[in-house]
């Protein structure tokens, strides 16, 4: 009898040990995550929707799933709907709708947003809280039809402190030269401005910025055509012509963030794509992907010209925004 009871105790003990051991080993993530789309695009000052697909690959049920961004200082904020997902059944799937928002002042860039997913699961009476960290690549784009930057956003006294100081030193040098005919301080100040300006400019990549401005030709910037800022609503004829599009067409809009006509070109293509299922498009920033612009032939005589709209299957390119609707319809082969 004693032996039998002892055997039962041993068995219960072994079961307990096995349970605790398996539970300890199970403190791993049991959920698998994918973002749809994998690399969402969010407009500055706007928001974008991303679906977080959750797959439970274990025999345990996951409870109270919530999502938040790891770094609060991140420029892109995230909200999930619903706030809390109550359960993801074993071997089951669930989804969470995430809304990404970017502030208006945000420049065009790619941001890695660290997303934390918190959930719990229990093995017998032992429960675990798991925090899985995921990296979400978010492309921030400037608004399609954005207003020029305001004067106030370009003016910051603190940023101009060093040049103001240099001007003060220069004025002192000129005064010394004029009053006591001493030129050495003036030349020293000038040499300091030259050395300091070029060195600091190169360190802060201003030479690259200068190169970029020279290497990319914005059609409206040098007066080849007028910049357009209005919302390009397609005409009824254009919409009717789009219906006759026979095959799927992909367009690529090459643009530069500082180009004045590019937002119009992007918005025009977007409007046409909204009106036709056969038309797909994507935007390529030539500042960031100059090789792509080169390989797609939007370079004429050493200049990348923006905006340029490429039809991928034929390689034909349309430059600028003048009579854009007509020229786009011709590019699509549905023009009159």
């Amino acid at each position: 009898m004693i032996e039998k009871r002892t055997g039962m105790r041993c068995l219960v003990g072994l079961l307990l040990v096995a349970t605790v051991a398996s539970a300890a080993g199970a403190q791993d993530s049991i959920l698998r995550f994918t973002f749809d789309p994998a690399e969402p695009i969010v407009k500055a000052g706007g928001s974008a929707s991303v679906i977080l697909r959750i797959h439970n690959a274990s025999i345990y049920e996951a409870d109270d799933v919530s999502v938040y961004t790891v770094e609060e200082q991140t420029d892109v904020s995230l909200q999930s709907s619903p706030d809390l997902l109550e359960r993801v059944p074993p071997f089951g799937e669930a989804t969470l709708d995430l809304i990404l928002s970017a502030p208006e002042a945000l420049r065009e860039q790619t941001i890695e947003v660290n997303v934390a997913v918190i959930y719990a699961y229990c093995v017998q009476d032992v429960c675990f809280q798991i925090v899985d960290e995921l990296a979400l690549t978010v492309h921030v784009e400037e608004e399609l039809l954005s207003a020029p930057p305001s004067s106030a956003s370009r003016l910051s006294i603190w940023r101009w402190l060093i040049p103001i100081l240099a001007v003060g030193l220069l004025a002192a040098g000129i005064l010394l030269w004029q009053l006591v005919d001493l030129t050495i301080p003036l030349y020293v100040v000038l040499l300091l401005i030259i050395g300091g300006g070029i060195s600091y400019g190169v360190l802060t990549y201003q030479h690259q910025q200068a190169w970029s401005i020279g290497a990319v030709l914005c059609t409206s910037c040098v007066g080849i055509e007028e910049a357009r800022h209005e919302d390009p609503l397609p005409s009824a004829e254009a919409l009717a012509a789009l219906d006759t599009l026979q095959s799927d067409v992909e367009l690529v809009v090459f643009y530069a963030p500082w180009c004045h006509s590019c937002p119009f070109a992007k918005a025009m293509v977007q409007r046409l794509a909204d009106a036709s299922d056969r038309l797909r498009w994507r935007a390529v920033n030539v500042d960031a992907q100059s090789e792509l612009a080169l390989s797609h032939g939007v370079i004429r005589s050493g200049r990348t010209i923006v905006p340029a709209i490429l039809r991928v299957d034929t390689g034909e390119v349309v430059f600028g925004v003048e009579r854009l609707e007509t020229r786009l319809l011709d590019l699509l082969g549905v023009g009159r």
Partner: protein
Amino acid sequence: MKLWQVRRISQGFGVLLGVFGITGIGMTHLIFPGLHCYACPLAVTICPIGLMQNLVVFGVVPYFWLGVIVAYGLVAGRGFCGWFCPFGTLNDLLAFRKVRIHRLASYSKFVVLLATIVFAWVFADTMFCKVCPAASIEASIPYLFLKVATVNRPFLIHMASLGATLIGMVLIARFWCRYLCPMGALLGLFNRVSLLHLSLDTDRCTGCLACSASCPMGLKPHLEYDDHNCIKCGECQEACALDALTLTFSAKRRP
């Protein structure tokens, strides 16, 4: 070799740098020491005025630009206008009437420079480029032939600006450089401290005005050798039979 021959060769180098893209070299980080449109299909350098406007639009503190412009100013001041700038060379080619400069009107180029900055700021756009006659020749016309541009309103504005400037150049030698060039205004600020400068030996000068007759900028070089309008071309040095005026490259200046 005479001074004017050296200057022509130097101006040739300026034009060569302006169209160096013909060799297949793309854009470089170099800021051109004169007025030369970066949109020119053959340009390998950046226009200082175009870049300045872009930096104003972006609200960028222009460290790199400022360092380079001050360096150009310190080396030669407006000497670049007389020796290197391709648009200055075009002015030179049409310099038939070397009339006396209008002193007050010559300050209008500073107004153009200021307006270029203010307009870029207010309109957040490179407004000067839209009327720049250098851009008319170096960008508008070439891109018309490359079928990127069409004969539209901006093109016609460019042609009107170019036409008016060319007429001005024919009627008044170096008309653009005298009254309108914002780059000339920038470099002119450094004329009195630049290493390349004109110096006068007052003991030799008789005040014969031979130098005045030769000056394409319409100055009286024996009196205005330090003026912000002097492009240091050296025409006066060659005109002076008594060698009273000399073009010098030195930090020391004659008192």
